[in-house]
Each structure stands twice: as structure tokens, then as C-alpha cells.
């Protein structure tokens, strides 16, 4: 993992089009601004994990569920 130190107001650029800016820091919390091209999904990591799990579960469920159960 690349580790960089930044100050409030400074940014990191990833490739041509993605900029991550440190907006402010308060205690253990950091507020971050992200500029990225449209269509690049941005998620909080823990939510992305849950989203992925729920989709995998939905694939599995589709083999077990019967549409009739809904009606």
C-alpha cells in the first residue's frame, strides 16, 4: 500500500482524472472530497462489502426461491 502524508487542503491525484482532497481533519475523522469521472462508482468500503455480499446472496437465493412464494 502506498502511504502519503497530506495536509488539510492538499490533494492526491490518481491517474489523469481522479483527485482526492483532504477537506478537514477533526480528531479521528477525516473529511475527504473526491473528484472522479462520471460512471466511476465510489463507495464506502464497508458498504461496498455488504453490497457485494447481498448480490452474491441474491444469486444464491434465486436457485432456492420460488416466485410463487411472493404471490
Amino acid at each position, binding site marked *: 500500500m502506498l502511504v502519503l502524508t497530506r495536509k488539510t487542503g492538499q490533494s492526491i491525484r490518481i491517474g489523469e482524472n481522479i483527485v482526492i482532497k483532504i477537506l478537514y481533519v477533526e480528531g479521528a475523522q477525516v473529511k475527504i472530497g473526491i473528484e472522479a469521472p*462520471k*460512471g466511476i*462508482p465510489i*463507495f464506502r468500503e464497508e*458498504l*461496498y462489502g*455488504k*453490497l*457485494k*455480499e*447481498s*448480490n*452474491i*446472496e*441474491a*444469486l*444464491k*437465493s*434465486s436457485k*432456492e*426461491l420460488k*416466485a*410463487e*412464494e*411472493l*404471490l
Partner: protein
Amino acid sequence: MGIPGVPFERFILKDLLEPVKWLIAIDDPDVAMLVVPPFNFFPHYGFELNEEIESVLETDKAEDVEVYVALLKHDEGVAANLKAPFVINKNKKIGVQILLEDDSYSFKEPIKK
């Protein structure tokens, strides 16, 4: 953009039993989930599409957009993923799964019959 956890990008919707549809990966029809329009089961469900999503979908008109949620097996029956609906521009065949900030919606909301 694809669907996180599902290693395919192209999907089709196929009717199963009204209102339930299959969302099937074109490149591997064995990869599929059951989806429904949420509003039949959750009349108060709703969210705003932000400009970014509208530009991905290439429309800002509500009538172009269809909404589906995935069905999941639940202890006693069926649940729906209200936290991450699929929004689809049916005219342009562009769809995306969005993650709602709204904490009142969960990934596994039981459907009451």
C-alpha cells in the same frame, strides 16, 4: 459499471411470473437473480436520482427509468434489497445498481405478504 460481486457487465431482464423477473448475465445464463419492482411491496419506497446517476443513465425523466430490487431468501420467506436498487433506462438499455445513503432501507427487508 457492473454489479459488485457479479463478474459480468451485460444483463437482460426476462419475465418469470408477474411482477417477478430474472436479471440474467448474458455471458453466463446460470448467473441470475430474481428482481421485482419494489413499489408493489413497499408503497412508500422512494429515492432521488442524483445528477451523476442521471448522466450515467442518459436521462433525467422519471418515465424513462424502471426500478427493480433483488430478492433474497429470508428466514421465513422472501426479502428485498432496498438499499441497493437497480435503476434502468429501458429505452437506452443502460442500467446501474445504486447504493442509497438512506439508513431506513436495508439490504434485506422482509416482504410481508
